[in-house]
């Protein structure tokens, strides 16, 4: 199924959506998350973007995967395999319920994730890992 591309005008609610999501993530992940950052186009005020809130979670180590995968799955995220934006083994990807989310971990040092609040998004549910450049 081809994925539609929908770019919308900047939405003032995006930072708030991130903050709300980050609270849930922090609550579930605790100290496992060294940082939780709003990244990507929706983090740039005024920038038109696909309505997907990209979130990057930094972790101290990429293994064991379940240290962060399990809490994220608990929040409704789905681990996916099609994040091929970087060298393999440096990040993991998860997709969220309302839409999709990707979580990636930089080489033993960070993980990132991206909830998508778009109603029209298509969320693959396969497993895998790759890297998300900062």
């Amino acid at each position, binding site marked *: 199924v*081809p*994925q*539609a*591309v*929908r*770019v919308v005008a900047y939405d003032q609610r995006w930072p708030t959506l991130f903050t709300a999501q980050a609270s849930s993530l922090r609550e579930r992940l605790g100290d496992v998350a060294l940082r939780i950052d709003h990244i990507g*186009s929706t*983090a*740039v*005020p*005024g*920038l*038109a*973007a*696909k309505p997907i809130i990209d979130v990057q979670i930094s972790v101290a180590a990429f293994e064991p995967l379940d240290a962060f995968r399990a809490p994220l799955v608990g929040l409704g995220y789905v681990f996916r395999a099609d994040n091929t934006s970087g060298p393999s083994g440096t990040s993991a990807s998860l997709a969220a319920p309302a839409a999709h989310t990707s979580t990636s971990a930089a080489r033993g040092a960070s993980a990132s994730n991206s909830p998508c609040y778009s109603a029209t998004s298509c969320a693959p549910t396969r497993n895998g890992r790759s890297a998300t450049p900062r």
Partner: protein
Amino acid sequence: MRAHPQWAQRYAALKLELAERYACDRHAYTRAKQPFTWEVLAA
């Protein structure tokens, strides 16, 4: 991008154009954005 609104403006215009051109092909859309992304990173 946050620090350089002029880049953001250009990027927004490019994204809207590409979103129209590649409305049904997200991968093509993403690929088409890359030259601009690299240009910004190199600036």
